């Protein structure tokens, strides 16, 4: 069909399509030229996520370990003191699982806590298990099975148990899992934790009441309560 000027319809469309084809090919060329760069490969990035999460869990739990500390006391004369008292001293109770309603021993000691680590992006949420065990060169570990002498050499013995904490050092181990049903951890990280200081803190029972520090500043030296143990711990390699 011809239009008024005897030109075939459709010729303009062909030209337009040809131009569009040229521009589209240039755009496609731009697209294939662009590519994304990554600092780490995905494995290294994920390892970093796991390690940082594990370190934070260790630091958090370490800072709360004063709740499990039993200060050693002078043994009273009389029977039973060594067998009853010594096993709980320092972190001994923790190592036995005294602070758990369902003590769960495992490959890395006694289960101390379990939980989830939430990432902001929501796609890399992790599950962790935190274990506590006695350090392998605790004298009690090395004297495992022999007799400990009682008070003043009296006829009182206890068998040394590897879970006696005689040096105030324990090993915390974190296992990181990709979810709470996974059985193989993606990261296992251990640190030795040791006591670096202990202090009895005196505080007033009322906010405006003087504590025992005699400073006349109407402030105690600790938190609410009359006497508290403030225990500081350190990672042995920090």
């Amino acid at each position: 069909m011809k239009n008024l000027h005897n030109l075939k319809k459709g010729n303009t469309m062909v030209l337009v399509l040809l131009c569009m084809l040229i521009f589209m090919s240039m755009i496609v060329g731009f697209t294939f030229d662009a590519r994304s760069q990554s600092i780490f490969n995905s494995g290294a990035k994920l390892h970093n996520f796991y390690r940082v999460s594990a370190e934070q869990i260790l630091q958090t739990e370490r800072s709360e370990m004063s709740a499990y500390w039993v200060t050693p006391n002078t043994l009273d004369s009389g029977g039973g003191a060594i067998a009853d008292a010594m096993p709980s001293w320092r972190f001994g109770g923790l190592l036995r699982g005294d602070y758990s309603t369902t003590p769960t021993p495992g490959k890395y000691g006694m289960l101390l806590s379990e939980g989830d680590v939430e990432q902001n992006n929501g796609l890399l949420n992790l599950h962790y298990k935190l274990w506590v065990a006695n350090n392998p060169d605790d004298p009690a570990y090395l004297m495992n099975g022999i007799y400990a002498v009682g008070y003043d050499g009296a006829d009182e013995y206890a068998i040394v148990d590897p879970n006696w904490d005689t040096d105030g050092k324990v090993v915390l181990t974190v296992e990181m899992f990709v979810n709470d049903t996974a059985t193989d951890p993606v990261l296992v990280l251990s640190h030795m934790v040791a006591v670096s200081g202990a202090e009895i803190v005196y505080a007033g029972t009322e906010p405006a009441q003087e504590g025992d520090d005699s400073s006349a500043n109407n402030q105690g030296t600790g938190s609410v309560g009359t006497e508290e143990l403030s225990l500081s711990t350190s990672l042995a390699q920090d």
Partner: protein
Amino acid sequence: MNRQKAFSLVELLISLAISIVVLGGVIATFSRMNEGIRNANKSSDLTTGMRGIFAMFQHDIYMSSKGFSDLNAYQIHYNNSAVTGENYFYSITGLTTSPSSQVTLQWFDYNMASADSNPTYAVLTEDGKAASFTSSFPALLFCSTILDDPRLSTIAQGDVYVIYNGDLLYEYDWTELRDNMDPTTGLIDETAHPIGAGIVEVESVSDGVIPDPYNAGPKAFKTAKRVQFRSSGTFGNSFTVNLGTPYVPPQPLGTYMAGAVESPSASGNVRFPPDSWFARKVGTLDTFHRVTYRLDSDTIIRTENNQDMILSTEISNFRITVGLSDATITDAWTGSASSDSSDWVTDESDMASSSVAKELLGKHAYALRVELEKRSLFKDTSDTNADGSGGALKSRKMSQTFKVKNAHIPLANK
């Protein structure tokens, strides 16, 4: 005759000319944009490559600076026959600028996760008598109070142990350690205060016979293995000095309080007597890593256990400096014996005694800084000549400082 209307030759030529002009402009623009994207990609590659080097440094420094956990309190004697001048095992060593900046990091894959992976044993001499850990000392007995302790059967050729005098862990606290340290260098004077330790490799293992009086009574050892150590190699036991105090036969095992007979102290200490020796497994040769970073011409090479890996080429500047932990230590380095004038040290030979320099570096390194400059493979087109010649290669500089966790304070609780 039917004549079809079509484009005339003139129309075609004109449209062709217009198309060429338009397409020429488009292609020129496209070409410039393409070149800009390629340059950006090359620049990004440059940065990414350098960041990869820093990622490697971060990993190696993190792994090496963990050391041996609480055993970092010791100066662990070390006799690597392949290396001269390294008398102690330190995680950072070999800092030099000759012929170019270079540093060595070394560590074991050691995490104390369980007594099965890193066991500790009490140590006796074969005759139960006093001895000195001199070069090629005799075989030792690794002992257990458990009959047929299965852990003893895992001792194998190639295992690496740190043998140490237990006083530093069990008898001393940080005040006593401080009192035993040289106030200037912070190092233990082993002549005045022999608290020795050494790292050794197992050569052979056999059943051991426990000497008197350690083999009888309620506090006896029940099982022992006789362990012979290699005298040469990476962890040879040919130490140049005695490992601190002679080994003193301990009193029979049991609860012990310093200066008293066998009875528990007020704090219920279960202790070995002073000068008792112990052996802690820190790994095997397979779990040992010795990594050296150096610049060879314009190539950064990372050598791990004698295997080279090229990290990057076109490096125009590579500099490693180490920050020491406090002014006292830095003063010991930058005193009259040293030519370094800042708190960052670059070369062990700057000190008159390189052995003391190694000890300061190994014990008191606090941070490690890496400075890097890498040339790209493309020129800055803004200063090239019209014909494309001339112009300088673009380069990128980066530096990063890494923390070195170098704790060396014992955390013994008496």
